């Protein structure tokens, strides 16, 4: 995902000469191709996320399309008020990129676990939130992320994620669209981000156990695909949301808010994610996903228990 981001960024920078990249002193290796090609449109703001975000807003007020790059919680929670006041309220073209969604930097400790960012960004008026699942979704989303007006947030993994789509099928992606992966008749698992891999693995396990479970990826968390959620509610009695994020206020929260507003055919929503807690243990992403029941078997067991009326 990370390399796809850089490649798409360079493509857009060749088209849009007002595009500027600012980093908070991160992106070793990753940003080098951009820095080499566009040295005059690259700024390292140092380890100063608050000033960096306000500065980005100031540059955008002068007509720049400013891409702000950092990892984990640094371009989001660290400077949330600057995003609110300087960027969102001023309706400027600031594009915030976070590498390290969820437990990508799992071994580095709690400070580097990005498990509240979607919730924090989602509540800000005027901020679009993207969480692509793989490099194809990243490529499809980047075309929108960098060109649509306003503040947008892109949450991506590090790289090496499995691929779930043919890019040719999703190249015309529009902001706010859900991307169905497979159909089901008993329930659906809805995901945002690279955790789609766990949903797909869970779907296979559940199929072996006799359950027909559909899987849908939501590369855009805000605005969420409300018409599609309505269709799903008419189809199955229960929707599971899966995210590498706290279950409070994030993707699952967005689905709950939307479904609760439907006048009829409201499916039950079961949120799977971090249960309103931090992780004080460390490990690689796969380890922590399994530890918190967010891997294929963990998700399958949870879904099965709910479908059997045991949870």
């Amino acid at each position, binding site marked *: 995902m990370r390399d796809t981001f850089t490649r798409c960024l360079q493509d857009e920078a060749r088209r849009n000469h007002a595009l500027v990249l600012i980093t908070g002193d991160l992106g070793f290796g990753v940003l080098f191709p951009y820095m080499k090609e566009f040295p005059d449109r690259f700024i390292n703001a140092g380890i100063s996320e*608050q000033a*960096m975000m*306000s500065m980005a807003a100031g540059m955008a007020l002068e007509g720049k399309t400013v891409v702000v790059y950092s990892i984990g919680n640094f371009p989001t929670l660290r400077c949330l008020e600057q995003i609110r*006041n*300087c960027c969102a309220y001023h309706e400027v073209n600031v594009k915030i990129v976070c590498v390290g969604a969820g437990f990508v930097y799992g071994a580095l400790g709690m400070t580097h676990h990005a498990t509240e960012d979607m919730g924090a960004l989602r509540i800000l008026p005027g901020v679009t939130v993207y969480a692509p699942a793989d490099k194809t979704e990243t490529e499809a989303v980047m075309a929108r992320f960098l060109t649509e007006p306003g503040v947008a947030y892109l949450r991506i993994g590090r790289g090496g994620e499995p691929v779930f789509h043919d890019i040719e099928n999703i190249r015309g992606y529009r902001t706010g669209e859900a991307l169905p992966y497979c159909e089901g008749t008993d329930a659906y698992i809805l995901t945002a981000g690279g955790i789609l891999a766990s949903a797909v693995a869970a779907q296979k396990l559940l199929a072996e156990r006799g359950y027909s479970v559909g899987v849908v990826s939501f590369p855009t968390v805000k605005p969420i695909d409300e018409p599609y959620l309505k269709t799903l509610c008419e189809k199955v009695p229960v929707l599971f949301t899966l995210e590498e994020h706290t279950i409070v206020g994030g993707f699952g929260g967005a689905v709950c808010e939307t479904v609760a507003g439907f006048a009829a055919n409201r499916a039950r929503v079961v949120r799977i994610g971090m249960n309103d807690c931090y992780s004080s243990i460390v490990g690689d992403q796969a380890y922590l996903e399994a530890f918190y029941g967010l891997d294929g078997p963990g998700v399958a067991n949870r879904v099965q228990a709910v479908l059997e009326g045991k949870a």
Partner: protein
Amino acid sequence: MSYEKSKQLAYKIRRHALDMTSRGGTAHIGSIFSMADIVAVLYADILNHDPKNPKWPARDRLILSKGHAGAGIYAALAECGYFPLSELENHCSNGSHLSGHVSHKGVPGVEASTGSLGQGLPMAMGMAMAAKMDGREHRVYCIIGDGECDEGAVWETALIANQYRLDNFIVTVDFNKIQSLASVENTIKLEPLDQKWASFGWHVIRIDGHDHTALHRAYDEAKAARGEGKPIVIIADTVKGKGVSFMENDVLWHYRTARGAEYNAALKELEAQKP
């Protein structure tokens, strides 16, 4: 030179601000009065601007980072002709765009909305950065408060602006020595403030922020410093509440609204100083 134009404007800013805060029942008159001469000199004689064309691309930008003194900016803009003076009567009233902390929405001439300290300064830096990147001639001015200098982002900005040699960026510190609860000295000490900025690589000028001759000279020096590769900071020593004797140097007037006898007394003192 007698600088009649800026002195007249400073008087009018204080007069309007007294009425605006009194009518709206709002605070921060001490903070407005301390920067009134700075704002007046900038709008009267320093800024290259056109009230008939607020978005003129070649204009100099002024960002008020100490947004709580927004009434002073609204008053200056109305006096310059950006919008009718009668609009000032709506300050802080229900449904008005003229918020207590300065807002750009619906207010011609305001470059950016501020009010959360430490944010307008780096926004202004971003504007200066963009101008430098594009080789444009205009300058970016910013007024910050002394209490605002407690914010870490102020010093992040001081570091970055130096690194990128933003000599089109002119910051004025309204150093009135009083912040929200007590004096700066008894809260978070800033002195030696000029040495602090100098050590961050800035071109530092320190002056009496109520002396119009000194202010004009300072801004002339700041403009002439372009080419040095350093951002410029003017430390303006000011008096909180300047212009009304019972408001001066009293933290109470960070909050209090002049009404009744206090309003009349303040009005009398200001009118006695009319240039």
